[in-house]
């Protein structure tokens, strides 16, 4: 059984004009355990919406999103919250670190809703990404590359089965982007987590042997572009 199975996934939103706009229409998609896959997609092709549906942040309009055997589409919101906390790590383009919290606290917060706060494990994760000397610094006191590494540590805090990365290098310079991507792939591999990365950056996409075009998967995107 695949780690992630999507079938007939549809997600539509109501526009301010009152019309229904389909953003996602994915007949079939799957991701195996430990697989690292990059999805290519330009802005507005529903990359974030897809990741949010997979993470259980958004509820699909119809279809099935099955993660580790659990159907997120039919699960209640608390069930989706719990599944997200336990099984998914999320890396955002802008990192979405909590500014008032130290690196350590950001990682501990990542653990809090999953396996529970573990100071030693949090320290180990930050050590792994080379931030053992920045444990008690706040995001504002770190470079952009260092902030991304905190975000990576936080995403792995609950030993997730799946790491979702939404344009994870979008805010980094090429050098930092390469290093960050390398780091994300390494730590996912070390923790046996699958990685699903969405990006439109050729440099990122070139790093992956396994790369798909979201426009081919998402029929709604095809309609928009047509």
């Amino acid at each position, binding site marked *: 059984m695949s780690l992630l199975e999507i079938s007939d996934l549809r997600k539509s939103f109501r526009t301010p004009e009152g019309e229904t706009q389909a953003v996602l229409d994915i007949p079939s998609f799957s991701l195996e355990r430990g697989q690292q896959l990059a999805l290519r997609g330009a802005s507005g092709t529903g990359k974030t*919406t897809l990741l949010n549906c997979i993470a259980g942040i958004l509820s699909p309009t119809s279809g099935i999103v099955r993660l580790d055997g659990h159907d997120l589409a039919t699960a209640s919101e608390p069930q989706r*919250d719990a599944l997200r906390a336990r099984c998914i790590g999320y890396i955002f383009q802008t990192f*979405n670190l909590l500014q008032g919290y130290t690196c350590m606290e950001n990682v501990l917060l990542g653990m809090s809703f999953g396996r529970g706060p573990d100071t030693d494990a949090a320290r180990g994760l930050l050590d792994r990404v080379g931030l053992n000397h920045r444990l008690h610094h706040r995001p504002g006191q770190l470079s952009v590359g260092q902030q991304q590494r905190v975000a990576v540590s936080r995403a792995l805090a609950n030993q997730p089965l799946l790491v979702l990365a939404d344009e994870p290098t*979008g805010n980094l310079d090429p050098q930092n982007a390469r290093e960050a991507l390398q780091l994300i792939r390494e730590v996912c591999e070390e923790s046996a987590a699958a990685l699903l990365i969405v990006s439109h950056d050729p440099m990122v996409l070139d790093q992956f042997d396994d790369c798909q075009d979201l426009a081919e998967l998402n029929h709604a995107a095809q309609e928009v572009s047509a």
Partner: protein
Amino acid sequence: MTWWMIIRNSLRQHALSTAITALSIGLGGGLLMAIWVVNFQSQRAFKNVTGGFDAILGPRGSETQLVLNSLFHMDSSPGLINHADYETFRKSHKRFYRNAVPIAVGDNFQGYRIVGTTHDLFAAEHSPGEPYALAAGEYFIRNEKQWNKEAVIGDTVARKLGWRVNQKFSPYHGLNFIEGQEPHKDKYTVVGILRPTGTPADQVIWIPIEGLQQMDGHDAQFAGDVSAVLIQLSTNTTARAFGMNRLNAIYNKDSDHLTFVKSTADVVARLFDRLGWAEKVLRWVALLVAVVAAGSVLASIYNTMNERRREFAILRALGAGRDTVFGVIVLESATIAIMGALIGFAVYTGIMFAAESILRNEIGVTLHPFEQHPVMVIVPVGLVMLGVVVGIIPALKAYRTEVAENLIPQS
């Protein structure tokens, strides 16, 4: 741990508004507790001061003035009972009361009132179940036919003036001390110091009544007059009612030159009733302060909601449920209220010590700041409950935060 981490960080990030809000809650709560307790304890203390003396006979005038002057050693003396009237009361109406103690006032030492009385006063209880007791020395002579220039002083007088037994002093004329005034020539000797009573008696210099009546400089024609007579009615209910009614009829109805206060307790109660509006106003002000402070908790947290929407969205993205962010906000509001309640205890303690000092020095009534009172539980618990209630509104806003809309940017 997670909840506390979130709350602690939020309070730290909004430290100024948190501190001001907690302070205003503390001020309201502290005031409320202090007003309640000061009122309760002072009423109790004032009612206790009548201890033993049910009634008072005095010159024609205000009952309140008579009680304040005779029992609380405050206010001016309404005048004198002439010797003949006093003797009539003593000899002809003795069957209507159990005990009567005359007092005479009109002199002071550096503002401490000198009260002439008989030894019988010390046989009474200054508060229910608490008789007068000496800390040092002895009482002045018992025999009214033979008196010495001796004085027994209250605890406050001894402490404030630094007097000990054998201290000599000359009284000053009048109830208030006037700088530069010449004292009387008579010299009195302190023979006894009373133990603290927590009543106005602590502020009094007691001398034999004859000493005051016949003091050098006092008009000899008033030598037998007294300022008032403190009366103990019978302990038997029927006899007591009979005596009270008879004396009331004799002095308040059938004649018009003396006043008989038939119940000192009623006068004190009426006095507090009359002052009740002030206490009510203060209580409402304190309540208003507390409610406004609770409103400021609501405003201060609610105003941060917009800037914190992203924080909640991130927490939700990390797996926190809606109930978690709701609970965090309610608990944050309650935490500010708890901080306010703790500050309230500090405010309460400060006010109580100030009030205690003022009342003890000005009136002689002692308050007990650390004495347990239900309001010291009700107010803090009420404040925390109020904190929880006002926290619900911003918590609902946090509850409704949509994750996807508040995680930026979206690709």
